[in-house]
């Protein structure tokens, strides 16, 4: 299918969904006071903002805090508009209303080239596509924390809701005191008049509800809080052990469960003898688990403590059955993908000029094949969920990135209506995309339904967590450049293959929207079709495969491997042209000034070109993802024959910066995450069994191995774009490029092995 055909058919198919609505701007997500949870004494002014009796401001929080600082970031938007201290904004869990759906995340799934879709002058196809998908996203109302989109998504609706609250509070005071609004000002949760009269928000809230007023967010020149490194609101509870993660839920009479799933992915239980296990002290029962929401079948053991459950689970005698299609094998899958590159054209995501003609007259061709393995998420908090079914109602406590999906799957498993299910979202001990799936929620509900009204906390072992993930899919790519007589590339063809994530994820979590044919998935091609470099001829196509290994979104998704492919190859082209890798990129970025500025900032701050100590080398990489551009300059040496990264200088353009300290944290975080993958990360599958199981054979970077990270921000007045993921993609190519300088070896397979 050609790209244009696909877009047109997608627009046609979605036409039915959008019939009957008018335009839905950010204002349509304001919601009504009834959208918020009622609580005695509180006055909700819209779907986002309530005023408590004591005058404090309450924000409906739909997004999950998993370390990225979103609870602080969103609260900052509200504190800014209402001129209250950040600490006085309280968070309350949002309901399941569609106003909390993440529109920005879905709009970002459109495969438009970023140079076409940024700024104010977008081509019609981009405008129409974004409008259409925005409508669909608004209608679906999927509450998801992912795609580095929380601030981008909340930017208009949350500020608008807070501005509306501000206007109506001022309106109420003006009416009450019979004075013009222009004579009023707000400070620290009070409205003041020049006469000295003042009232706190709580005294004005009931009247404010009756004085809705048109509002626009503050101009940026009036900002006091946005752009400052405000302290995170969740830190105090995270230094004294009081923060409540999923595994910290404690309920009266609670039981503890653990799982064993068939070690062969997609396999089943052939026979099970739990007699000995059930006779062990503290054990309550053994519950069969079917394959649900993408999981592999197995069983759970319920006991009085998690330790009793773990011990008994090992005592269950079980005969596992391989999946019907035979055992999965990652080495064979990689070979299949390489073969697919020879036999299949795939879906064309991007075309410019005529690469085929350029190749036909080529004096010189440079070609390389790159590979990246499966990866596990390895959140520090293993998968877990607590559930209780009592009096016809189901309550679920889950560290999840998708509370609506958690509710839906719980209702499906329990055969209840969604309205009979309450989901409490706890803090997440890491997410990285793993908690965009709800297999563990389904399992907990299955177990709770068998436990006669008692609450059950189901917690996976690290081994189950590592061996039953939704893995970052294995991908391969072939890159081919045509060089002129001077070694300058003018044509770039990229052909890649691997499993698509979005269709599998949709099938697991939104079965009603899943069709028999997979639509092309941007995540397969992101980081390959969307390059900023001005090669005259470009062609990028992806072969979407179905290897049947469970795959999911892994921090920075397709960019995580594709940036390694593309930015390593661009470096190869620089060396082929005998050019400095920085100067080579600069020359190709004449029509991409935002990219060039980020690249130059990183190079300048890293003192690119200045001599390094003997045995050290630098590498550079530049990559756009989730609307943000990141450049990194990395310095490496070898210690005992292994790479030791000393320093990484990051520059980022992420649009308007809400909180520079949070951006710097995410850059530091991304460097560690990216280096872990680049140096150590691989999941191998043999006969269906994942070979890695715990941190001894799926290691993470340690403190001692962590480089110094410096972060520099490009000032911007664009709307905010992603921060949580964009720092990850450039890490692996920057390291590979530095290692090439150091050793002369071009490493084209992840993890990097000298």
């Amino acid at each position, binding site marked *: 299918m050609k790209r244009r055909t696909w877009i047109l058919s997608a627009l046609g198919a979605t036409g039915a969904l959008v019939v009957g609505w008018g335009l839905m701007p950010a204002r349509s997500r304001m919601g009504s006071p009834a959208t918020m949870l009622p609580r005695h004494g509180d006055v909700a002014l819209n779907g986002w903002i309530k005023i408590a009796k004591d005058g404090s401001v309450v924000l409906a929080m739909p997004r999950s*805090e998993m*370390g*990225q*600082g979103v609870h602080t970031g969103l609260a900052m938007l509200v504190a800014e508009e209402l001129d209250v201290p950040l600490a006085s904004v309280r968070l309350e869990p949002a309901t399941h209303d569609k106003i909390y759906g993440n529109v920005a995340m879905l709009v970002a799934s459109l495969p438009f080239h970023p140079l076409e879709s940024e700024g104010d002058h977008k081509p019609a196809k981009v405008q129409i596509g974004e409008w259409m998908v925005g409508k669909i996203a608004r209608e679906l109302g999927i509450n998801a924390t992912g795609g580095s989109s929380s601030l981008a998504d909340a930017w208009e609706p949350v500020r608008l809701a807070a501005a509306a609250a501000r206007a109506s509070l001022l309106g109420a005071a003006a009416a009450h005191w019979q004075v013009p609004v222009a004579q009023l000002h707000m400070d620290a949760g009070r409205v003041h008049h020049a006469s000295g009269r003042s009232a706190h928000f709580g005294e004005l809230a009931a009247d404010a509800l009756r004085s809705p007023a048109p509002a626009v967010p503050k101009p940026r020149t009036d900002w006091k809080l946005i752009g400052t490194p405000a*302290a*995170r609101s*969740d*830190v105090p*509870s*995270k*230094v*004294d*052990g*009081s*923060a*409540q*993660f999923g*595994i*910290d839920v*404690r309920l009266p009479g609670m039981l*503890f469960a653990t799982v064993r799933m068939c070690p062969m992915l997609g396999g089943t239980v052939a026979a099970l003898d739990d007699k000995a296990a059930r006779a062990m*002290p503290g054990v309550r029962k053994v519950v069969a688990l079917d394959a649900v929401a993408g999981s592999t079948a197995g069983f759970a053991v319920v006991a*009085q*403590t*998690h*330790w009793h459950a*773990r011990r008994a689970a090992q005592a269950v005698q079980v005969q596992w059955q391989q999946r019907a299609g035979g055992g999965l094998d990652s080495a064979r899958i990689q070979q299949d993908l390489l073969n697919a590159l020879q036999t299949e054209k795939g879906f064309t995501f991007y075309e410019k000029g005529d690469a085929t003609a350029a190749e036909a007259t080529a004096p010189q061709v440079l070609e390389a094949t790159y590979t990246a393995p499966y990866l596990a998420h*390895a*959140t*520090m*908090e*293993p998968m877990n969920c607590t559930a209780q079914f009592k009096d016809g109602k189901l309550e679920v406590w889950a560290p999840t990135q998708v509370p609506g999906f958690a509710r839906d799957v719980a209702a499906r498993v329990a055969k209840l209506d969604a309205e009979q299910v309450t989901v409490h979202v706890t*803090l*997440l*001990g*890491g*997410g*990285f995309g793993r908690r965009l799936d709800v297999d563990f929620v389904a399992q907990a509900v299955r177990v709770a339904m068998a436990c006669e009204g008692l609450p059950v906390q189901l*917690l996976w*072992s*690290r*081994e189950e967590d590592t061996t039953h993930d939704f893995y970052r899919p294995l991908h391969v790519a072939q890159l081919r450049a045509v060089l002129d007589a001077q070694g300058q590339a003018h044509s770039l063809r990229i052909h890649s293959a691997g499993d698509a994530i979005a269709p599998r994820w949709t099938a697991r979590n939104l079965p009603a929207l899943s069709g028999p044919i997979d639509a092309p998935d941007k995540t397969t091609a992101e980081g390959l079709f969307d390059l900023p470099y001005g090669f005259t001829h470009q062609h990028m196509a992806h072969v979407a495969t179905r290897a049947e290994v469970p795959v999911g979104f892994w921090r920075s998704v397709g960019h995580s491997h594709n940036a390694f492919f593309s930015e390593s190859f661009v470096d190869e082209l620089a060396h082929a042209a005998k050019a400095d890798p920085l100067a080579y990129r600069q020359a190709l970025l004449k029509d991409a000034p935002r990219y060039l500025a980020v690249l130059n900032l990183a190079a300048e701050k890293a003192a690119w070109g200045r001599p390094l100590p003997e045995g050290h080398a630098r590498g550079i990489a530049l990559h756009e993802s989730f609307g943000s551009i990141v450049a990194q300059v990395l310095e490496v040496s070898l210690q005992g024959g292994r790479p030791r990264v000393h320093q990484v200088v990051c520059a980022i353009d992420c649009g308007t910066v809400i909180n520079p*300290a949070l951006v710097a*944290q995410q850059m*530091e*975080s991304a*460097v*560690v*995450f990216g280096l872990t993958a680049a140096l150590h990360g691989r999941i191998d599958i043999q006969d269906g069994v994942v070979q890695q199981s*715990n*941190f*001894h054979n799926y290691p*993470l*970077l*340690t*403190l*001692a191995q*962590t480089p*110094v*990270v410096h972060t520099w921000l490009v000032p911007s007045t664009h709307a905010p774009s992603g921060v949580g993921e964009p720092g990850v993609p450039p890490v692996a190519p920057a390291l590979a490029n530095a290692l090439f300088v150091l050793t002369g070896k071009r490493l084209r397979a992840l993890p990097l092995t000298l």
Partner: protein
Amino acid sequence: MQLRINGQSVEVNADPEMPILWMLRDVLNLTGTKFGCGIAACGACTVHLDGQPVRSCSVPVSAAEGKALTTIEALGRKDQPHPLQTAWIAEQVPQCGYCQSGMLMAASALLAANKNPSDADIDAAMTNLCRCGSYQRVRAAIHRAAAAMRAGAA
């Protein structure tokens, strides 16, 4: 079994073979100590036994008999936080925060033994894993707390 936990004498009804981690979490509901790996590889479950850092997922309850067991809940008090907790807030160390109880317990054992740790000392002592990558700020916060403690003691 009689145990001394966070300065209190506690009668605990638990299998002596049960790892300290699960006794704390599932018997006593002291949930500040976290489960990460179960094989003493990640350090999320670090507590002190007589001031020494141990990975409680792999130490049986019987090993705590006759010793002082200290968890994150007793590292400091609300009105008198440990200098490391103050430094952790000043440096904004935590992200998801899940590993931080263990990090703080490992760091406090380090500072109890070494009032002025070098970067190499910190590298050697702080082998706890953090998936969010807070390591750079962990290092800075340890230096900050060490300086504050030295200044306080002077």
